[in-house]
Structure formats: structure tokens, C-alpha cells
């Protein structure tokens, strides 16, 4: 056995727990997961059947953790995990899976297939079988502090713009603030509206908040490439900054994987509970709404729908908050078929957007979203994930569909009742 294969096998073994073992014992090859997967549905390629994407992990489980498998391994009859196998499965593990988790919701025996693909990525990346795009993003995240290579300088420049435009002061490194606001590099680079919206809404609500020059980036390339070591390093920076400032809550921006990384994976990566709460911006906004601190005026004239980011709704439990918030400012709101818990992925989550070779596949996968949109024909599409937003914009353009995409926080800010604007 080669060294790389050995590294992968050892990393897989670390990932196999009771749940994985129960899952792999239970699969009867019924094929239902294929039809839940947008990569299979839109291409018709059976290799994209979710459970099939787990063949390397399954082989290690069988030959290391079952009696028959161990015997087969002893006499050399167990199917082997080779470099060729890993190389072939790289595409299936990364390009053709956005970790959207629809498969995990439909499996009749209850297997969390997407969760296992996330685990399989640990072995793939350890042995070097991960896409260059994700490797680059992870390296930049660790070395520069952001997967897109954004530095604090860029954030500071954006702060300057927002302060000029709004007349508000953006708090930075403020000790003892209630909320620490994080951003995704996509928001820093492409959607400066987000920071402005936050500044205006929080100012109006009288919320005590701050940015941190030590931890401004929320996205976690470690989660996407599947390296716990990288993910731990990135989340530790946020934890250190938050606990040093003594904030009560850290807010994940409009980004799906950032939320999963911060809210659900982070404490397990550092091996202890946080000393603060972790919330998505929509959860915070909904709390402000409930407390009467988020007041809006006027309604959108157009017909609008909401794209649920997978990591928020299916893998994160943020389902009702966006709908309550949207209804504050949109009268003609319509949900797409299968919206909510079973919403179709945009096609580029889970790191797919960073994989150059997946460019064509992710646009094919977008056809699932296209059909959903065609069913309700909205004038505008709202979402709450900058990564989804980029993919949605690209897919819509590719299909000549003239539907503008907007972030929910930004939409709310457009309708904000502003009383104390005199500050600047």
C-alpha cells in the first residue's frame, strides 16, 4: 500500500464512529438518495448517487470495523483503498457534492449521508486529494486571514466608505460590546451593502456591537475542504477575539458554511463550549423584530421569493426567522415548491464555488433552482448567503433570467424606519 493511501485510510479511521458504522450497516442500495441529489438529478449520472460517493470510506469501515471485513482483509480479499480510487473519488467528494444534505433527509434508514461526505473529505484532504481551488482558498485563509485574500486594510477601507455614506460610526475592537459582527470575504469584496445595512439597523435598534480587526472573516475554508486542523485554526481566531473583547454574542454573516462552522462545528473543533453565543444575523434580526427594536416602513411592490441556504435551514435550523422578517416588508411573498427544509441547493455550496473544474457542473446543477423559480415566477429573489447569491446571480445570467438577487439584511435596511439619523 502506498503512503498516500495509508494516510487517507488512517484519517478515515479517525472519522468512523458509531453513527457511521450504523449508517453503512443499514444502506440497502434503494437508490432514493440519488433522486434527492441535484447533481444526480440534473446530470442523470448514477456515479453522483450520494451513497456511492462514499465508497472509499465504506471500504475502510468494512475492512477495519466488521468481522467479515477484517477476515477478508487478512486473506487479501477486501476491496482496497488505492491512490487510483482516491483520485477517482476526488470529483465525487468535492465537485459533485455541495454538502446540502437533502440526501440525509430522505434516506429511509436514516443515514446522514452528507455528514459522511464531510467526514470523507478529512481523509481526502489529508492524503492530498482535494481540488486546487479549495487548497488555495484554505492556504489564503490560514496565511492571510481570508479565503479570498482580503486583509483588514480592505475592511478598513469599506468601513470608511460606510461611515461616509451613512454618517454613522462603525465600532472597531470595542471591549465589552454585546455583539461581535463577522463578515464573509464575499461581502467585503462584492456586497458592501451588508455592512451598511448592519450599521444602520443596529444603530436604530440601539445595539452595542463591534467589528474586530483580529477576526473579521467568518467563512471557514477548513470546513469546506474538510480539514479539521484548518477549520480549528480559523475558528480559534474568532473565539480568541470574541473572548478577549468579552462579547456576549458572535454574529455569523449571510453565509451558510460560516454559520455551520461557527455555530455547530466550532465548539467541537476547539473541544469545549464557547463563553459566548453564536447566532446567524437572521436570528439576531428576528430577535430585534420580536423585541420591537427593528421597525420597517413600506412594502415592496414586487413578487418575491426566498432561497433557503442549505446550511441555514436544513443543517442549521433557521427556517421561520427569514420568513417572519421577509413578511415585514414584502406583501407578495411566495415560497418556491419544496422551499424550507427540503429546498434545492443553489448548486455551489460546500466549497463547490471555489472549484474551478466544477464550473460547468455547478451551472448544470443550477437547473434545479431554475425549475423552482419558474414555478413561482418571482420578480426578485431574496437569500441570506453571499455564496448562494453569487451562484444564483451567475445561474440566472447564464439562463437569461432577469431576476435580481438581494440579501435579506440589506432588504430590511431599505425599509428601516430611521429616527436617529442625526448622529453624523
Amino acid at each position, binding site marked *: 500500500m502506498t503512503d498516500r493511501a495509508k494516510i487517507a485510510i488512517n484519517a478515515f479511521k479517525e472519522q468512523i464512529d458509531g453513527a*457511521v458504522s450504523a449508517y453503512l*450497516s443499514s444502506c440497502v442500495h434503494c*437508490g432514493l438518495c440519488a433522486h*434527492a441529489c441535484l447533481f444526480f438529478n440534473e446530470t442523470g449520472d448514477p456515479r453522483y448517487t450520494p451513497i456511492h460517493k462514499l465508497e472509499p470510506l465504506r471500504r475502510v469501515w468494512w475492512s477495519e470495523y466488521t468481522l467479515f471485513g477484517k477476515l477478508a482483509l487478512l486473506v487479501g480479499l477486501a476491496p482496497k483503498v488505492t491512490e487510483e480510487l482516491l483520485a477517482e473519488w476526488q470529483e465525487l467528494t468535492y465537485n459533485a457534492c455541495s454538502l446540502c444534505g437533502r440526501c*440525509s433527509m430522505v434516506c*429511509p434508514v436514516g443515514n446522514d449521508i452528507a455528514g459522511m461526505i464531510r467526514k470523507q473529505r478529512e481523509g481526502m484532504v489529508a492524503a492530498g486529494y482535494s481540488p486546487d481551488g479549495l487548497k488555495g482558498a484554505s492556504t489564503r485563509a490560514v496565511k492571510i486571514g481570508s479565503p479570498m485574500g482580503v486583509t483588514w486594510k480592505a475592511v478598513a477601507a469599506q468601513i470608511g466608505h460606510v461611515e461616509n455614506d451613512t454618517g454613522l460610526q462603525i465600532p472597531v475592537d470595542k471591549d465589552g460590546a454585546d455583539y461581535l459582527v463577522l463578515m464573509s470575504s464575499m461581502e467585503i469584496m462584492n456586497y458592501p451593502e451588508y455592512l451598511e445595512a448592519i450599521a444602520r439597523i443596529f444603530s436604530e435598534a440601539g445595539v452595542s456591537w463591534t467589528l474586530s480587526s483580529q477576526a473579521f472573516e467568518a467563512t471557514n475554508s477548513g470546513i469546506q475542504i474538510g480539514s479539521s486542523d484548518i477549520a480549528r485554526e480559523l475558528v480559534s481566531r474568532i473565539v480568541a477575539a470574541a473572548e478577549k473583547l468579552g462579547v456576549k454574542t458572535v454574529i455569523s454573516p449571510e453565509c451558510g458554511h460560516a454559520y455551520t462552522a461557527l455555530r455547530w462545528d466550532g465548539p*467541537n473543533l476547539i473541544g469545549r463550549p464557547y463563553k459566548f453565543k453564536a447566532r446567524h444575523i437572521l436570528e439576531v434580526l428576528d430577535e430585534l423584530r420580536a423585541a420591537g427594536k427593528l421597525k420597517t416602513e413600506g412594502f415592496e411592490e414586487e413578487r418575491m421569493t426566498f432561497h433557503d441556504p442549505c446550511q441555514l435551514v*436544513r443543517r442549521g435550523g433557521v427556517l421561520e426567522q427569514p420568513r417572519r422578517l421577509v413578511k415585514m416588508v414584502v406583501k407578495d411573498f411566495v415560497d418556491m415548491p419544496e422551499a424550507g427544509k427540503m429546498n434545492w441547493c443553489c448548486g455551489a455550496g460546500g466549497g463547490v464555488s471555489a472549484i474551478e473544474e466544477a464550473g460547468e457542473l455547478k451551472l448544470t446543477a443550477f437547473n434545479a433552482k431554475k425549475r423552482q423559480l419558474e414555478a413561482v415566477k418571482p420578480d426578485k429573489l431574496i437569500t441570506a448567503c453571499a455564496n448562494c447569491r453569487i451562484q444564483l446571480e451567475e445561474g440566472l445570467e447564464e439562463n437569461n433570467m432577469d431576476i435580481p438577487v438581494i440579501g435579506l439584511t440589506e432588504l430590511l435596511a431599505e425599509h428601516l424606519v430611521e429616527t436617529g439619523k442625526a448622529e453624523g
Partner: protein
Amino acid sequence: MTTVAFLDFVRGPLFQIAVAIFFAGLFIRFVEILVLGRKTDFSEPRQSGTGAGFKTVFSRSVPEAGTFKRSAFTIIAGYVFHIGLFVALVFLAPHIALVRDTTGLSWPNLPTPVVDFATVAAIGALVAILVNRMRDKVLRFLTGFEDYVAWTATFLPLLTGYMAFHHLLLRYELMLALHILSVELLLVVFPFTKLMHTFTLFLSRWYTGSAFGRKGVQS
């Protein structure tokens, strides 16, 4: 060996051996899974995962609406087969008698026509499932040797049981012996193949249901 001697051997020592392998196998498989355990989750839960976990154990038996539309055949044939097999296995008078004789436990049987109908439905569903497996693009691609072993080991007891009960084809004692032999084959391969899903699916549903539940997602 006479037919009667063959029958005695099959339902005597051979049956005991098969049952022993079956239970030992189940024990080993459960230990293999459970010793691996699961790491403590340090994230702040939205709610306890326990209730959601229990709910998922049951709710996964009901297909999600979109999935039902996309995979209606697999789901309906699956239901027919599982219910038919369950009725034949648990409510046929001779099966209850066997359990009563060995354990003292007993319950009312269902009338023969009902069990007959269930058995034929299960056999029909299994044949349809096999045909579908061979012609459907995804299923043909996924299917391996073990899937056919599992199918055969399940099919034979149903077929031979039906034929023995109705005295078809062979002399009753011989068909009964073949039926018991096929059950023994099933018992022996059961713990070491995906037939284990019969039991492990409850673990799987629990693991997923509770993990999703603490995130506030009823899965």
C-alpha cells in the same frame, strides 16, 4: 437419508446452529457499532435531541413528499414487501406454534387467506423489486453481489414457505425441509450482510434524528 430424517436434521441440530450463529452475529455487529460511540457535542443545542431522535425513528417510515413523487415505485414496492413479509412471518399459525413450543409465548394468528394474500404480495413485490433493480439506471449501477445474496436469502423462505403450506410441487415433508433450510441460510447470512438494516436502521435514524434535532431540524 430419508426425507423424514432430512427434515428432522434440518429442523433439529441445523436449526439450532443457524439460530446460534444468528444471535452471535447480531451481538457481534451491535458491539462493533456501539463500541465506536460518538463524541460529545459541545455546541449549544437549540433543544434536546432526544425527542426529535425518537420521532425520527418512526417518521422515517413515511416518505418525504417530493421523494414519494420521484421514487413512487421503490417506496410502494418496499412497503408491500415489508408488510407482506411481516404478516407472513408473525401471523402464520405454524410460525406462532413454533414460537410457543420454544418460548411459551403466543398470540392470535391471522386467517390463512389473509396470510396467503400477504405472502403472495410480498413475493410479487420482491420479484418486481428485482426486475426494477436490473433495469433502473441508478439501481443497476449501485447493485453488487451482496445485494443479490440479500435478495435471494429473503426470497427463498417466502417462496418455499408458500409452496410447503399449499403442498405444491414436492412432497410436503421435503418442501418443509427446504423451507427450513432456506430460513437457516437467511439466519446465517443475516448478521453479515445488509439484511442487518432490519435492526441497525433504528440506530441510524436515532443518530441522525437526535443530531439534527438539537440543531432544531426535525429530520
